[in-house]
Protein backbone atom coordinates (compact mmCIF):
# COMPACT_ATOMS: atom_id res chain seq x y z
CA UNK A 1 0.00 0.00 0.00
CA UNK A 2 1.42 3.33 -1.04
CA UNK A 3 1.71 6.11 1.47
CA UNK A 4 -0.51 9.10 1.92
CA UNK A 5 0.53 12.40 0.38
CA UNK A 6 0.17 13.81 3.87
CA UNK A 7 2.66 11.79 5.94
CA UNK A 8 1.11 12.87 9.22
CA UNK A 9 -2.01 10.96 8.16
CA UNK A 10 0.05 7.77 7.98
CA UNK A 11 1.56 8.53 11.36
CA UNK A 12 -1.89 9.00 12.84
CA UNK A 13 -3.10 5.68 11.43
CA UNK A 14 0.04 3.88 12.59
CA UNK A 15 -0.47 5.29 16.06
CA UNK A 16 -3.97 3.81 16.13
CA UNK A 17 -2.64 0.42 15.01
CA UNK A 18 0.04 0.48 17.70
CA UNK A 19 -2.44 1.42 20.40
CA UNK A 20 -4.87 -1.34 19.34
CA UNK A 21 -2.02 -3.85 19.48
CA UNK A 22 -1.09 -2.57 22.93
CA UNK A 23 -4.68 -2.92 24.09
CA UNK A 24 -4.82 -6.40 22.61
CA UNK A 25 -1.65 -7.42 24.46
CA UNK A 26 -3.00 -6.00 27.72
CA UNK A 27 -6.37 -7.72 27.33
CA UNK A 28 -4.71 -11.02 26.54
CA UNK A 29 -2.50 -10.89 29.60
CA UNK A 30 -5.42 -9.82 31.80
CA UNK A 31 -7.51 -12.82 30.75
CA UNK A 32 -4.59 -15.20 31.19
CA UNK A 33 -3.76 -13.85 34.65
CA UNK A 34 -7.37 -13.73 35.79
CA UNK A 35 -7.91 -17.41 35.00
CA UNK A 36 -4.66 -18.24 36.73
CA UNK A 37 -5.75 -16.25 39.77
CA UNK A 38 -9.01 -18.16 39.81
CA UNK A 39 -7.52 -21.59 39.57
CA UNK A 40 -4.79 -20.85 42.12
CA UNK A 41 -7.07 -18.68 44.29
CA UNK A 42 -4.35 -16.01 44.11
CA UNK A 43 -6.04 -12.86 45.41
CA UNK A 44 -2.99 -10.66 44.72
CA UNK A 45 -2.89 -11.64 41.07
CA UNK A 46 -6.65 -11.01 40.83
CA UNK A 47 -6.22 -7.56 42.29
CA UNK A 48 -3.52 -6.72 39.75
CA UNK A 49 -5.92 -7.74 36.97
CA UNK A 50 -8.63 -5.49 38.36
CA UNK A 51 -6.11 -2.65 38.50
CA UNK A 52 -5.00 -3.31 34.90
CA UNK A 53 -8.55 -2.81 33.68
CA UNK A 54 -8.18 0.89 34.44
CA UNK A 55 -5.19 1.03 32.12
CA UNK A 56 -7.16 -0.71 29.40
CA UNK A 57 -10.04 1.74 29.80
CA UNK A 58 -7.59 4.64 29.56
CA UNK A 59 -6.12 3.15 26.39
CA UNK A 60 -9.54 2.84 24.84
CA UNK A 61 -10.27 6.43 25.79
CA UNK A 62 -7.02 7.48 24.17
CA UNK A 63 -7.84 5.62 20.95
CA UNK A 64 -11.33 7.15 20.86
CA UNK A 65 -9.98 10.66 21.27
CA UNK A 66 -7.31 10.13 18.69
CA UNK A 67 -9.73 8.76 16.13
CA UNK A 68 -12.21 11.58 16.79
CA UNK A 69 -9.47 14.07 16.05
CA UNK A 70 -8.30 12.09 13.04
CA UNK A 71 -11.78 12.06 11.49
CA UNK A 72 -12.16 15.78 12.11
CA UNK A 73 -8.77 16.60 10.64
CA UNK A 74 -8.32 14.15 7.80
CA UNK A 75 -11.81 13.11 6.77
CA UNK A 76 -10.70 9.60 5.92
CA UNK A 77 -12.27 7.93 2.92
CA UNK A 78 -12.75 4.36 1.75
CA UNK A 79 -10.15 2.00 3.29
CA UNK A 80 -8.91 4.66 5.67
CA UNK A 81 -12.44 5.28 6.82
CA UNK A 82 -12.99 1.54 7.29
CA UNK A 83 -9.75 1.20 9.16
CA UNK A 84 -10.61 4.01 11.52
CA UNK A 85 -14.14 2.82 12.13
CA UNK A 86 -12.82 -0.75 12.54
CA UNK A 87 -10.27 0.46 15.07
CA UNK A 88 -13.06 2.03 17.10
CA UNK A 89 -14.98 -1.23 17.10
CA UNK A 90 -11.88 -3.28 17.93
CA UNK A 91 -11.02 -0.99 20.80
CA UNK A 92 -14.47 -1.44 22.25
CA UNK A 93 -14.32 -5.23 21.77
CA UNK A 94 -10.93 -5.37 23.45
CA UNK A 95 -12.20 -3.23 26.31
CA UNK A 96 -15.08 -5.69 26.77
CA UNK A 97 -12.58 -8.57 26.77
CA UNK A 98 -10.67 -6.74 29.49
CA UNK A 99 -13.90 -6.28 31.46
CA UNK A 100 -14.65 -9.96 31.21
CA UNK A 101 -11.11 -10.71 32.46
CA UNK A 102 -11.78 -8.40 35.39
CA UNK A 103 -15.01 -10.28 36.16
CA UNK A 104 -13.13 -13.58 36.24
CA UNK A 105 -10.49 -12.10 38.52
CA UNK A 106 -13.18 -10.83 40.95
CA UNK A 107 -14.44 -14.42 41.35
CA UNK A 108 -11.04 -15.44 42.61
CA UNK A 109 -11.68 -13.34 45.76
CA UNK A 110 -14.79 -15.35 46.61
CA UNK A 111 -13.40 -18.83 46.10
CA UNK A 112 -10.85 -18.42 48.88
CA UNK A 113 -9.26 -21.69 49.94
CA UNK A 114 -11.76 -24.36 49.08
CA UNK A 115 -10.14 -25.35 45.82
CA UNK A 116 -11.92 -27.94 43.72
CA UNK A 117 -10.24 -30.98 42.38
CA UNK A 118 -7.69 -30.40 39.57
CA UNK A 119 -9.66 -32.24 36.93
CA UNK A 120 -12.47 -29.73 37.25
CA UNK A 121 -10.05 -26.96 36.35
CA UNK A 122 -8.45 -28.71 33.43
CA UNK A 123 -11.42 -28.19 31.08
CA UNK A 124 -11.57 -24.52 31.96
CA UNK A 125 -7.89 -24.07 31.35
CA UNK A 126 -8.22 -25.71 27.95
CA UNK A 127 -11.08 -23.42 27.03
CA UNK A 128 -9.04 -20.44 28.18
CA UNK A 129 -6.01 -21.51 26.16
CA UNK A 130 -8.01 -21.95 23.00
CA UNK A 131 -9.68 -18.52 23.45
CA UNK A 132 -6.39 -16.79 24.16
CA UNK A 133 -4.88 -18.47 21.11
CA UNK A 134 -7.77 -17.07 19.04
CA UNK A 135 -7.26 -13.60 20.49
CA UNK A 136 -3.57 -13.74 19.74
CA UNK A 137 -4.25 -14.86 16.17
CA UNK A 138 -6.79 -12.06 15.76
CA UNK A 139 -4.24 -9.49 16.87
CA UNK A 140 -1.69 -10.96 14.46
CA UNK A 141 -4.24 -10.93 11.66
CA UNK A 142 -4.95 -7.28 12.46
CA UNK A 143 -1.30 -6.36 12.37
CA UNK A 144 -0.84 -8.15 9.04
CA UNK A 145 -4.31 -7.21 7.65
CA UNK A 146 -4.65 -10.91 6.91
CA UNK A 147 -8.19 -11.75 5.76
CA UNK A 148 -7.51 -15.50 5.45
CA UNK A 149 -6.36 -15.75 9.02
CA UNK A 150 -9.34 -13.72 10.15
CA UNK A 151 -11.69 -16.15 8.49
CA UNK A 152 -9.91 -19.11 10.14
CA UNK A 153 -10.45 -17.44 13.52
CA UNK A 154 -14.08 -16.90 12.70
CA UNK A 155 -14.41 -20.55 11.67
CA UNK A 156 -12.79 -21.75 14.92
CA UNK A 157 -15.41 -20.03 17.08
CA UNK A 158 -17.52 -23.20 16.87
CA UNK A 159 -14.71 -25.07 18.59
CA UNK A 160 -14.91 -22.75 21.61
CA UNK A 161 -18.67 -23.07 21.66
CA UNK A 162 -18.49 -26.87 21.75
CA UNK A 163 -15.74 -26.81 24.39
CA UNK A 164 -17.97 -24.54 26.48
CA UNK A 165 -20.97 -26.87 26.07
CA UNK A 166 -18.99 -29.90 27.19
CA UNK A 167 -17.50 -28.01 30.14
CA UNK A 168 -21.00 -26.90 31.09
CA UNK A 169 -22.21 -30.48 31.14
CA UNK A 170 -19.17 -31.62 33.12
CA UNK A 171 -19.71 -28.97 35.79
CA UNK A 172 -23.41 -29.81 35.93
CA UNK A 173 -22.50 -33.44 36.57
CA UNK A 174 -20.20 -32.41 39.44
CA UNK A 175 -22.83 -30.32 41.01
CA UNK A 176 -25.32 -33.12 40.91
CA UNK A 177 -22.76 -35.54 42.35
CA UNK A 178 -21.98 -33.40 45.34
CA UNK A 179 -24.10 -30.37 46.29
CA UNK A 180 -21.11 -28.91 48.20
CA UNK A 181 -19.50 -28.22 44.86
CA UNK A 182 -22.35 -26.06 43.72
CA UNK A 183 -20.99 -22.73 44.92
CA UNK A 184 -17.61 -23.28 43.44
CA UNK A 185 -18.88 -24.80 40.23
CA UNK A 186 -21.26 -21.92 39.72
CA UNK A 187 -18.27 -19.60 39.83
CA UNK A 188 -16.50 -21.78 37.33
CA UNK A 189 -19.60 -21.84 35.18
CA UNK A 190 -19.79 -18.07 35.06
CA UNK A 191 -16.08 -17.97 34.38
CA UNK A 192 -16.49 -20.38 31.45
CA UNK A 193 -19.38 -18.28 30.17
CA UNK A 194 -17.15 -15.21 30.30
CA UNK A 195 -14.45 -16.96 28.35
CA UNK A 196 -17.01 -18.06 25.81
CA UNK A 197 -18.06 -14.38 25.52
CA UNK A 198 -14.40 -13.50 24.99
CA UNK A 199 -14.42 -15.94 22.11
CA UNK A 200 -17.43 -14.13 20.66
CA UNK A 201 -15.61 -10.79 20.93
CA UNK A 202 -12.64 -12.34 19.14
CA UNK A 203 -15.03 -13.36 16.39
CA UNK A 204 -16.16 -9.76 16.23
CA UNK A 205 -12.52 -8.75 15.92
CA UNK A 206 -12.11 -11.14 13.01
CA UNK A 207 -15.20 -9.73 11.34
CA UNK A 208 -13.93 -6.20 11.86
CA UNK A 209 -10.58 -7.09 10.34
CA UNK A 210 -12.38 -8.56 7.36
CA UNK A 211 -14.43 -5.37 7.03
CA UNK A 212 -11.34 -3.23 7.23
CA UNK A 213 -9.65 -5.03 4.41
CA UNK A 214 -12.48 -6.11 2.14
CA UNK A 215 -15.19 -3.62 2.95
CA UNK A 216 -17.94 -6.01 4.04
CA UNK A 217 -18.93 -7.85 7.22
CA UNK A 218 -20.07 -10.77 5.19
CA UNK A 219 -17.21 -13.01 6.25
CA UNK A 220 -19.10 -16.30 5.84
CA UNK A 221 -20.31 -15.94 2.29
CA UNK A 222 -16.92 -15.93 0.66
CA UNK A 223 -16.47 -19.56 -0.04
Amino acid at each position, binding site marked *: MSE*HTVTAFDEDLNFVVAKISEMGGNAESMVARSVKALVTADIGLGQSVVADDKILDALQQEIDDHILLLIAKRQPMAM*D*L*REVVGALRMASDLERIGDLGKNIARRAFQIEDNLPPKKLLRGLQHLTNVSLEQLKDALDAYAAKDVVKAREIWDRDDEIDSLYTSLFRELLTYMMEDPRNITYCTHLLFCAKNIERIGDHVTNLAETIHFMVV*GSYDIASED
Partner: protein
Amino acid sequence: MDAMNTKRQEDAVNKMVQNEIKMSGKDVCVSYGEKQALFDVNLDIPAKQVTALIGPSGCGKSTFLRCLNRMNDTIDICKVSGDIRLDDQDIYDHDIDVVELRARVGMVFQKPNPFPKSIFENVGYGPKIHGLVRSKSDLEEVVVKSLQRAGLFEEIKDRLHEPGTGLSGGQQQRLCIARAIAVSPEVILMDEPCSALDPIATAKVEELIDELRENYTIVIVTHSMQQAARVSQQTAMFHLGKLVEVDETDTIFTNPSNQKTQDYITGRYG
Protein backbone atom coordinates in the same frame (compact mmCIF):
# COMPACT_ATOMS: atom_id res chain seq x y z
CA MET B 1 -11.04 -10.28 -5.17
CA ASP B 2 -11.18 -9.30 -8.85
CA ALA B 3 -14.07 -11.63 -9.45
CA MET B 4 -15.80 -10.06 -6.53
CA ASN B 5 -15.30 -6.56 -7.91
CA THR B 6 -16.62 -7.36 -11.36
CA LYS B 7 -19.63 -8.91 -9.75
CA ARG B 8 -20.20 -5.81 -7.74
CA GLN B 9 -19.80 -3.60 -10.80
CA GLU B 10 -22.42 -5.66 -12.57
CA ASP B 11 -24.74 -5.26 -9.63
CA ALA B 12 -24.27 -1.52 -9.75
CA VAL B 13 -24.93 -1.39 -13.47
CA ASN B 14 -28.04 -3.50 -13.04
CA LYS B 15 -29.24 -1.17 -10.37
CA MET B 16 -28.70 1.80 -12.67
CA VAL B 17 -30.57 0.22 -15.51
CA GLN B 18 -33.62 0.52 -13.33
CA ASN B 19 -33.19 4.29 -13.67
CA GLU B 20 -33.80 5.84 -17.04
CA ILE B 21 -30.60 6.85 -18.83
CA LYS B 22 -30.73 10.57 -19.71
CA MET B 23 -27.39 10.97 -21.42
CA SER B 24 -24.80 8.51 -22.48
CA GLY B 25 -21.32 8.67 -23.88
CA LYS B 26 -19.91 5.82 -25.94
CA ASP B 27 -16.23 5.61 -26.84
CA VAL B 28 -15.88 9.33 -26.40
CA CYS B 29 -12.42 10.55 -27.43
CA VAL B 30 -11.44 14.21 -27.27
CA SER B 31 -8.21 15.75 -28.44
CA TYR B 32 -6.89 19.28 -28.37
CA GLY B 33 -4.71 19.43 -31.45
CA GLU B 34 -2.04 16.77 -30.99
CA LYS B 35 -2.86 16.11 -27.38
CA GLN B 36 -5.55 13.60 -26.62
CA ALA B 37 -7.51 14.50 -23.52
CA LEU B 38 -10.09 11.73 -23.33
CA PHE B 39 -9.71 8.05 -24.24
CA ASP B 40 -12.79 5.93 -25.01
CA VAL B 41 -15.00 7.10 -22.21
CA ASN B 42 -18.19 5.14 -21.74
CA LEU B 43 -20.49 6.70 -19.22
CA ASP B 44 -24.24 6.64 -18.71
CA ILE B 45 -25.88 9.46 -16.85
CA PRO B 46 -29.09 8.39 -15.15
CA ALA B 47 -32.06 10.74 -15.23
CA LYS B 48 -32.96 12.82 -12.16
CA GLN B 49 -29.84 11.90 -10.31
CA VAL B 50 -26.65 13.70 -9.54
CA THR B 51 -23.59 12.27 -11.22
CA ALA B 52 -20.29 13.48 -9.85
CA LEU B 53 -17.15 13.45 -11.95
CA ILE B 54 -14.00 13.33 -9.84
CA GLY B 55 -10.34 12.92 -10.53
CA PRO B 56 -7.09 14.81 -10.28
CA SER B 57 -6.55 18.02 -12.27
CA GLY B 58 -6.16 17.49 -15.99
CA CYS B 59 -7.82 14.09 -15.89
CA GLY B 60 -10.42 15.09 -18.48
CA LYS B 61 -13.48 15.35 -16.28
CA SER B 62 -14.18 18.98 -17.23
CA THR B 63 -13.50 18.12 -20.87
CA PHE B 64 -16.08 15.38 -20.71
CA LEU B 65 -18.55 17.70 -19.02
CA ARG B 66 -18.10 20.33 -21.70
CA CYS B 67 -18.70 17.73 -24.39
CA LEU B 68 -22.17 17.15 -22.99
CA ASN B 69 -23.44 20.54 -24.17
CA ARG B 70 -20.82 21.07 -26.87
CA MET B 71 -19.11 23.93 -25.06
CA ASN B 72 -15.93 22.52 -26.56
CA ASP B 73 -17.14 23.72 -29.96
CA THR B 74 -15.83 27.17 -29.08
CA ILE B 75 -12.28 25.84 -29.02
CA ASP B 76 -11.04 25.61 -32.58
CA ILE B 77 -8.53 22.81 -32.10
CA CYS B 78 -10.84 20.58 -30.08
CA LYS B 79 -11.92 17.37 -31.85
CA VAL B 80 -14.60 15.13 -30.39
CA SER B 81 -15.26 11.61 -31.63
CA GLY B 82 -17.51 8.85 -30.39
CA ASP B 83 -21.14 9.01 -29.59
CA ILE B 84 -22.83 11.25 -27.03
CA ARG B 85 -26.55 10.89 -26.76
CA LEU B 86 -29.24 12.90 -25.10
CA ASP B 87 -32.48 10.91 -24.95
CA ASP B 88 -31.06 8.60 -27.65
CA GLN B 89 -30.27 11.45 -29.99
CA ASP B 90 -26.70 12.05 -31.06
CA ILE B 91 -25.90 15.59 -29.95
CA TYR B 92 -23.01 15.83 -32.40
CA ASP B 93 -25.32 15.07 -35.26
CA HIS B 94 -25.39 17.60 -38.10
CA ASP B 95 -29.02 18.54 -37.74
CA ILE B 96 -28.68 19.27 -34.02
CA ASP B 97 -28.90 22.97 -33.26
CA VAL B 98 -26.23 23.81 -30.71
CA VAL B 99 -28.25 26.71 -29.37
CA GLU B 100 -31.20 24.46 -28.71
CA LEU B 101 -28.97 21.79 -27.22
CA ARG B 102 -27.53 24.29 -24.75
CA ALA B 103 -31.04 25.30 -23.80
CA ARG B 104 -31.74 21.65 -22.99
CA VAL B 105 -28.39 21.08 -21.33
CA GLY B 106 -27.63 24.11 -19.16
CA MET B 107 -24.33 24.89 -17.57
CA VAL B 108 -23.05 26.47 -14.37
CA PHE B 109 -19.41 27.44 -14.23
CA GLN B 110 -16.60 27.29 -11.73
CA LYS B 111 -16.52 31.02 -11.06
CA PRO B 112 -19.86 32.69 -10.60
CA ASN B 113 -20.23 34.64 -13.84
CA PRO B 114 -23.41 36.68 -13.80
CA PHE B 115 -23.75 39.14 -16.65
CA PRO B 116 -22.96 42.68 -15.56
CA LYS B 117 -26.64 43.48 -15.77
CA SER B 118 -29.53 43.42 -13.33
CA ILE B 119 -30.57 40.23 -11.58
CA PHE B 120 -33.80 40.28 -13.54
CA GLU B 121 -32.00 40.63 -16.86
CA ASN B 122 -29.58 37.87 -15.91
CA VAL B 123 -32.34 35.36 -15.34
CA GLY B 124 -34.60 36.69 -18.09
CA TYR B 125 -31.93 36.66 -20.78
CA GLY B 126 -32.19 32.95 -21.61
CA PRO B 127 -36.00 32.82 -21.88
CA LYS B 128 -35.91 36.00 -23.97
CA ILE B 129 -33.44 34.79 -26.58
CA HIS B 130 -35.09 31.39 -26.82
CA GLY B 131 -38.50 32.95 -27.20
CA LEU B 132 -39.87 30.99 -24.26
CA VAL B 133 -42.07 33.84 -23.10
CA ARG B 134 -44.69 35.79 -24.95
CA SER B 135 -45.30 38.73 -22.66
CA LYS B 136 -43.58 40.75 -20.04
CA SER B 137 -45.69 39.24 -17.28
CA ASP B 138 -44.75 35.75 -18.49
CA LEU B 139 -41.11 36.72 -18.31
CA GLU B 140 -41.56 38.04 -14.80
CA GLU B 141 -43.20 34.83 -13.78
CA VAL B 142 -40.39 32.74 -15.23
CA VAL B 143 -37.75 34.89 -13.53
CA VAL B 144 -39.43 34.76 -10.15
CA LYS B 145 -40.03 31.03 -10.41
CA SER B 146 -36.42 30.35 -11.39
CA LEU B 147 -35.14 32.48 -8.55
CA GLN B 148 -37.45 30.70 -6.15
CA ARG B 149 -36.24 27.32 -7.36
CA ALA B 150 -32.68 28.49 -6.91
CA GLY B 151 -33.59 29.46 -3.35
CA LEU B 152 -32.54 33.02 -4.00
CA PHE B 153 -35.82 34.84 -4.38
CA GLU B 154 -36.47 35.53 -0.72
CA GLU B 155 -33.02 37.01 -0.26
CA ILE B 156 -33.08 39.37 -3.21
CA LYS B 157 -36.71 40.04 -4.05
CA ASP B 158 -36.29 43.77 -3.33
CA ARG B 159 -33.16 44.01 -5.43
CA LEU B 160 -34.33 42.44 -8.69
CA HIS B 161 -33.19 45.42 -10.70
CA GLU B 162 -29.84 45.85 -9.07
CA PRO B 163 -26.74 44.46 -10.75
CA GLY B 164 -26.18 40.76 -10.33
CA THR B 165 -22.50 41.39 -9.80
CA GLY B 166 -23.32 43.14 -6.52
CA LEU B 167 -24.40 39.89 -4.84
CA SER B 168 -22.18 37.77 -2.63
CA GLY B 169 -20.25 34.89 -4.20
CA GLY B 170 -22.73 32.25 -3.10
CA GLN B 171 -25.70 34.34 -4.18
CA GLN B 172 -24.03 34.95 -7.53
CA GLN B 173 -23.58 31.23 -8.05
CA ARG B 174 -27.19 30.56 -7.18
CA LEU B 175 -28.13 33.36 -9.56
CA CYS B 176 -26.17 31.51 -12.25
CA ILE B 177 -28.08 28.36 -11.39
CA ALA B 178 -31.35 30.30 -11.59
CA ARG B 179 -30.21 31.63 -14.95
CA ALA B 180 -29.53 28.08 -16.10
CA ILE B 181 -32.89 26.69 -14.96
CA ALA B 182 -34.80 29.65 -16.38
CA VAL B 183 -34.63 28.09 -19.85
CA SER B 184 -36.10 24.84 -18.43
CA PRO B 185 -33.20 22.58 -19.24
CA GLU B 186 -33.37 18.82 -18.82
CA VAL B 187 -29.78 18.45 -17.75
CA ILE B 188 -27.66 20.89 -15.74
CA LEU B 189 -23.90 20.64 -15.96
CA MET B 190 -21.91 22.13 -13.12
CA ASP B 191 -18.20 22.68 -13.41
CA GLU B 192 -16.82 22.93 -9.88
CA PRO B 193 -19.67 25.20 -8.84
CA CYS B 194 -18.47 25.66 -5.29
CA SER B 195 -14.73 25.97 -5.70
CA ALA B 196 -14.89 29.75 -5.32
CA LEU B 197 -17.36 29.77 -2.43
CA ASP B 198 -17.07 29.75 1.33
CA PRO B 199 -18.39 26.72 3.25
CA ILE B 200 -21.76 28.28 4.06
CA ALA B 201 -22.40 29.32 0.48
CA THR B 202 -21.19 25.87 -0.54
CA ALA B 203 -23.68 24.27 1.81
CA LYS B 204 -26.48 26.36 0.36
CA VAL B 205 -25.54 25.41 -3.20
CA GLU B 206 -25.31 21.74 -2.22
CA GLU B 207 -28.72 21.92 -0.60
CA LEU B 208 -29.99 23.46 -3.82
CA ILE B 209 -28.45 20.70 -5.93
CA ASP B 210 -30.16 18.14 -3.74
CA GLU B 211 -33.50 19.86 -4.30
CA LEU B 212 -32.98 20.29 -8.04
CA ARG B 213 -32.41 16.55 -8.37
CA GLU B 214 -36.18 16.06 -8.28
CA ASN B 215 -36.64 17.80 -11.61
CA TYR B 216 -33.31 17.82 -13.34
CA THR B 217 -30.52 15.50 -14.27
CA ILE B 218 -27.34 16.96 -12.86
CA VAL B 219 -23.73 16.30 -13.71
CA ILE B 220 -21.21 17.96 -11.42
CA VAL B 221 -17.46 18.15 -11.60
CA THR B 222 -15.87 18.65 -8.24
CA HIS B 223 -12.53 18.51 -6.58
CA SER B 224 -14.02 18.06 -3.17
CA MET B 225 -14.43 14.38 -2.43
CA GLN B 226 -16.71 15.20 0.45
CA GLN B 227 -18.91 17.24 -1.83
CA ALA B 228 -19.13 14.45 -4.37
CA ALA B 229 -19.99 12.06 -1.56
CA ARG B 230 -22.61 14.43 -0.19
CA VAL B 231 -24.50 15.50 -3.30
CA SER B 232 -24.18 12.71 -5.84
CA GLN B 233 -25.76 9.34 -6.33
CA GLN B 234 -23.35 8.16 -8.97
CA THR B 235 -19.67 8.94 -9.08
CA ALA B 236 -17.30 8.57 -12.00
CA MET B 237 -13.58 8.64 -11.43
CA PHE B 238 -11.36 9.93 -14.24
CA HIS B 239 -7.63 9.48 -14.42
CA LEU B 240 -5.31 10.58 -17.24
CA GLY B 241 -8.18 10.95 -19.66
CA LYS B 242 -9.68 7.57 -18.93
CA LEU B 243 -12.78 6.67 -17.01
CA VAL B 244 -11.33 4.51 -14.25
CA GLU B 245 -14.37 3.58 -12.28
CA VAL B 246 -18.02 4.42 -12.12
CA ASP B 247 -20.26 3.26 -9.34
CA GLU B 248 -22.81 4.31 -6.80
CA THR B 249 -21.41 7.11 -4.72
CA ASP B 250 -21.93 5.22 -1.47
CA THR B 251 -19.76 2.39 -2.72
CA ILE B 252 -17.07 4.62 -4.24
CA PHE B 253 -16.46 6.45 -1.02
CA THR B 254 -16.52 3.49 1.34
CA ASN B 255 -15.17 0.67 -0.72
CA PRO B 256 -13.98 1.51 -4.24
CA SER B 257 -12.90 -1.40 -6.36
CA ASN B 258 -10.19 0.36 -8.35
CA GLN B 259 -6.80 0.97 -6.82
CA LYS B 260 -6.50 4.39 -8.57
CA THR B 261 -9.81 5.49 -7.13
CA GLN B 262 -8.79 4.17 -3.72
CA ASP B 263 -5.52 6.08 -3.86
CA TYR B 264 -7.17 9.25 -5.10
CA ILE B 265 -9.98 9.43 -2.59
CA THR B 266 -7.83 8.44 0.35
CA GLY B 267 -5.24 11.05 -0.48
CA ARG B 268 -2.50 8.73 -1.65
CA TYR B 269 -2.39 10.18 -5.15
CA GLY B 270 0.82 11.47 -6.65
